[in-house]
């Protein structure tokens, strides 16, 4: 195995990055609030700021503690009982032994596509959800590879980090949208103040550029995580072929777009649930090639 990524490093890096991101999100909201209030009416500065602070803190907290529930709910996942899904449970139990991790809660979602996702802020609150299609169409070893990949995400605290990134992207685009739209409703001519005009231009520029930049950063981060999770899957199973065959099957299955899945959840999935829309995952062939070298 070449260039193996050490686990502990990955975990502490992810933890640090997610705390760092929380701080960044907080400040981004402050700055946006400041610029917007300066552009509109400095008198409202404190009102907007206080509102923005309360809003951002509660948003972060809710997402931090409930990301798994939100994700499960939004795809309509049901808990997988041991009696009905014995193989699924057995495979995950084996992988948990191999990785020394607590067993995550297991869910199933109604879909004929082959896909899976993981969530939860740390391994103790881990959640894995697979589609019915994956359970039916994948062989035991292939399914194991997919599950190991998801467990890899949980082990390296990817979910915490990715959720924070997703929250940041969402917030920034919401704020920018609100600001840009609010411009249409305000009369022109009323503001001749030059400092106001400057802030207005900064505000507009920020509102347009920020979401785009953040979006691309998110995509590249998300792609890197996939390779890491593939690597940890191999570390757990010592059997890259299972994962390779699963990826191959997904490529051949000609997956159609999943309408029920929110776009914001795309990075959480095993393979991209959307065709053409932003690449949150590296191409399947590339992942297979990397796996073959292990």
């Amino acid at each position, binding site marked *: 195995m070449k260039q193996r990524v050490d686990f502990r490093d990955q975990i502490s890096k992810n933890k640090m990055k997610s705390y760092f991101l929380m701080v960044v999100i907080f400040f981004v909201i402050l700055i946006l609030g400041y610029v917007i209030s300066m552009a509109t009416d400095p008198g409202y500065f404190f009102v907007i700021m206080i509102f923005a602070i309360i809003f951002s803190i509660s948003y972060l907290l809710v997402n931090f503690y409930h990301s798994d529930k939100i994700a499960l709910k939004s795809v309509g996942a049901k808990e997988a009982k041991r009696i009905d899904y*014995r193989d699924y449970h057995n495979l995950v139990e084996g992988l948990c*032994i191999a990785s*020394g991790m607590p067993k995550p809660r297991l869910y199933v979602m109604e879909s004929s596509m082959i896909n899976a996702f993981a969530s939860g802020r740390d391994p103790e609150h881990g959640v894995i959800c697979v589609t019915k299609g994956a359970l039916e169409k994948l*062989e035991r070893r292939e399914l194991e590879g997919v599950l190991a990949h998801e467990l890899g995400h949980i082990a390296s605290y990817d979910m915490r980090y990715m959720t924070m990134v997703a929250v940041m992207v969402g917030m920034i685009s919401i704020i920018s949208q609100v600001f840009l739209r609010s411009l249409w409703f305000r009369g022109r001519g009323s503001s001749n103040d030059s400092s106001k005009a400057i802030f207005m231009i900064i505000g507009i520029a920020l509102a347009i550029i920020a979401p785009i930049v953040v979006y691309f950063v998110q995509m590249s981060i998300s792609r890197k995580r996939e390779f890491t999770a593939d690597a940890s899957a191999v570390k757990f199973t010592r059997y890259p072929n299972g994962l390779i065959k699963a990826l191959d099957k997904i490529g051949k299955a000609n997956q159609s777009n999943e309408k029920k899945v929110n776009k914001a959840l795309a990075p959480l999935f095993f393979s991209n649930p959307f065709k053409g829309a932003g690449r949150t995952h590296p191409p399947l062939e590339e992942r297979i090639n990397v796996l073959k070298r292990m």
Partner: protein
Amino acid sequence: MWEIIILAIVVIIGGMFFGYYNRFVTLSNRIDNSLSQIDVQLKRRADLIPNLINTVKGFAKHETAAIKAVTDARKALVGAKGVEKKVEADKKLESALKTIFAIAEGYPDLKANTNFLELQKELTSTEDKVAYSRQYYNDSILTYNLLCRTFPGVLFANIYSKKPRTYLEIAAEEKEVVKVDFN
């Protein structure tokens, strides 16, 4: 100024003493834990055998040799002391089970029996778990040994008199068997 630098150095070195001690303790605990995990899985495997034997007896009474081989192997596994011996015994049990499953192919009723199928599934997945627990045991030893052998861990290993541990050897052909079984 000098006082601050000296104080900082003392704090850092003191912190390393604590940090490395805790790291050694955590890692040896992990090794012990994973060792008992192997035990747990082997025991569960042994517990499944009597049920399987009863089911097989119901359909294929005349295969006494194969049945006896499995019960003997199970007895050896239960009686074995130490992980190495237990793993050894488990290997014998695995090959005895293979004979039983091969024989079952000749008994359509047995092959279609849901109880038998369930047990077969459970046994294969416990075999999976045994393999994974051994793998995790060796992984834990690997991390521990790396800490013992690399700098600066090696200094602290000497101070706390921690010695590298030996791996649980797994025969290559056996590992292959585990992988092939499920396809």
